[in-house]
């Protein structure tokens, strides 16, 4: 028997979410959304349990998780940083801002700092083009950014 280990509360929550969607394979994406909302990320054992509950191969679930950029198997930082790389932000210098975030944090895109405080990601157009270039830390939007503002912004969270 191949075993998948999960804590009781986690397993219970996942089963509840799957059941709320009728344990239907067609609801896989909705289930993944909700489970990720609950735990912040989708580690292997969580996907295994979802696959069992929805009665689909776990390879299929993994195929879905790795297809959509919204789903992640790595826990996000305490303060997830998202740099808008939409066209409007790009032509107004978002790349330089991103480079500065990378340099200050010492991490690349899709990574989390060793202390778990920050994670860095790019996203496409938050719809705040008037404020370009834009970055989000958690829910907070920072607009009209220049590279020299990055250090001070990060200091707000240290």
């Amino acid at each position, binding site marked *: 028997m191949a075993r998948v280990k999960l804590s009781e509360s986690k397993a219970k929550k996942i089963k509840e979410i799957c059941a709320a969607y009728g344990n239907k*394979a067609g609801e896989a994406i*909705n289930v993944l959304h909700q489970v990720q909302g609950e735990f912040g990320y989708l580690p292997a054992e969580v996907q295994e349990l979802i696959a069992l509950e929805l009665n689909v191969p776990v390879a299929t679930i993994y195929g*879905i998780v790795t297809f959509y950029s*919204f*789903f992640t198997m790595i826990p996000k930082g305490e303060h997830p940083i998202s740099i808008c790389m939409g066209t*409007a932000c790009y032509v107004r210098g978002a790349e330089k801002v991103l480079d500065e975030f990378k340099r200050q944090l010492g991490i690349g895109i899709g990574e989390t700092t060793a202390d778990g405080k920050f994670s860095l990601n790019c996203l496409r157009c938050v719809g705040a083009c*008037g404020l370009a270039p834009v970055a989000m830390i958690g829910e907070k*939007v920072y*607009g009209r950014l220049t*590279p020299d503002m990055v250090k001070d912004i990060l200091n707000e969270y240290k």
Partner: protein
Amino acid sequence: MAKYKMHVLVCGGTGCTASHSHEITDNLKAVLRDKGLEEDIQVILTGCFGFCEKGPIVKIMPDNTFYTEVKPEDAKEIVEEHIIKGRKVTRLLYTDPEKKEHVSDSKHMGFYKKQLRIALRNCGFIDPENIEEYIANDGYAAVAKCLTEYTPAQVIDEIKLSGLRGRGGGGFPTGMKWEIASKNHADQKYVVCNADEGDPGAFMDRSILEGDPHSVIEAMTINGYAIGATKGLIYIRAEYPLAIHRLQIAIKQAREYGLLGKNIFGTDFDFDIELRYGAGAFVCGEETALIHSMEGKRGEPTFKPPFPAQSGYLQKPTNVNNVETYANVPIIILKGANWFNKIGTEKSKGTKVFALAGQINNVGLIEVPMGITLREIIYEIGGGIKNGRQFKAVQTGGPSGGCLTEKHLDTPIDYDNLIAAGSMMGSGGMVVMDETSCMVAIAKFYLEFTCEESCGKCSPCRIGNKRMLEILERITKGQGCMEDLENLKNLATVIKDTALCGLGQTSPNPVLSTMNNFWDEYVEHVKDKKCRAGACKSLMQYVIDPNLCVGCTSCARNCPVNAIQGEKKTPHVINAEICIKCGTCIEKCKFNAISIK
């Protein structure tokens, strides 16, 4: 709305929300409460006004005063001066950049003068979280008219006659699409609203859903009646939490009012709507991919035919339209196809919403009649290029589109003219670029996006776009050769010709159109190792002119990597090996001594 003496409309679009428009609302309400005016003056958080450049926007009705760049602390002054004393707060009014005069009514602003708001008709005017406001503005009258006066075939005829075409990119005639779906018989059919806006420079669908969600719900209901579907699905990006929130409220309210559910308007027509969430995949804007994603699968496109109208969601006939297309439908029904088809050009009727962005003075969301010229958009609505720089190009259609240049400035904009010019309408991103934008780098930017968003199913898109990107990377690093340009052209042509879906087939457009319009720039990068825009980092060097440098040390102190050396009061030098070309020194130098070579 009648019971209030005045309405204060505060923009609740994403841009203005990011600039604290919620706090403005709270402060306004608090001040009004203090003054005992909360019964007389209503504060509404609306959808996007469009003029994001000058946000947050606050508008006072009925005198139509348009305040720009309002801060939360301005609430007190607005209430005390404008609302109580009837004196406009002039410092918050828009200043006409040419005449240098204050303009208080948005109708007289360059930004709004040439706009015609049909799809955005309610955005910025009604409270999107209150169905009564929508109803008060003729909401749900169109669906009532359809259900009680029209047969489904008549509804389709009306839409066909209007000339409405899909606003999501391809421009397929909407009425024809409905007709095909209506003719396929099945026990269950579906109506799907594509709200998976993915163009990295477009946010009109989001604004409509945030500002006027009921118009989409009403249109989908009309669509359901026309084709014989009882179920509707809205496929929306999970990254749009505010739009999701407002849609959920709107659907709930519509159900409570009996506008969704069983026996709508006492007829035997049933219709209801569910939400489905996208999870970050641009390709899901393609309708077959979208359908697979709604079925809980990887959002990979499949070959058409069969078209969704034949076999779509759960293999049932499915009609997919995008948000902006739907937003046009109720008003077409109410005002009639013959009203709508008088707007626009011969083959492109009505208006189009564009997200105007880039190096332009008035960034924002605009809606203009088809047939307007780029010149009108850029110079009249957009207020010209930022910092008085020179116009170079405008990119439309996002990653699927191309660049238009000086010579296209007076071409009337419609579906067919844009394609003829090597671009496309796309979902309506419009990014204006000046001489500081490198066209090779722009092509690379879009390809990076396509490579990231390619589903990987077909080889031309999966590998071909990666190879194109690699060639462009080489060119922008000064490592390209002329053979690269030849390969790039062949690859672009073959990918366009062979890729499986719309994403792949249009992905070479940014490359092809920049090559066609800016061939010299490509050759310059390859032969002279030069980027005239000064945008390709590897091809430039920051240097300090010793004749201009006074040795103030400001650059050296601000350099993040300590690449600048020099004694106080003597000219400084940049060590090119350490320099990361971040541009901080240029910004900090007060003597214009630093330049890019």
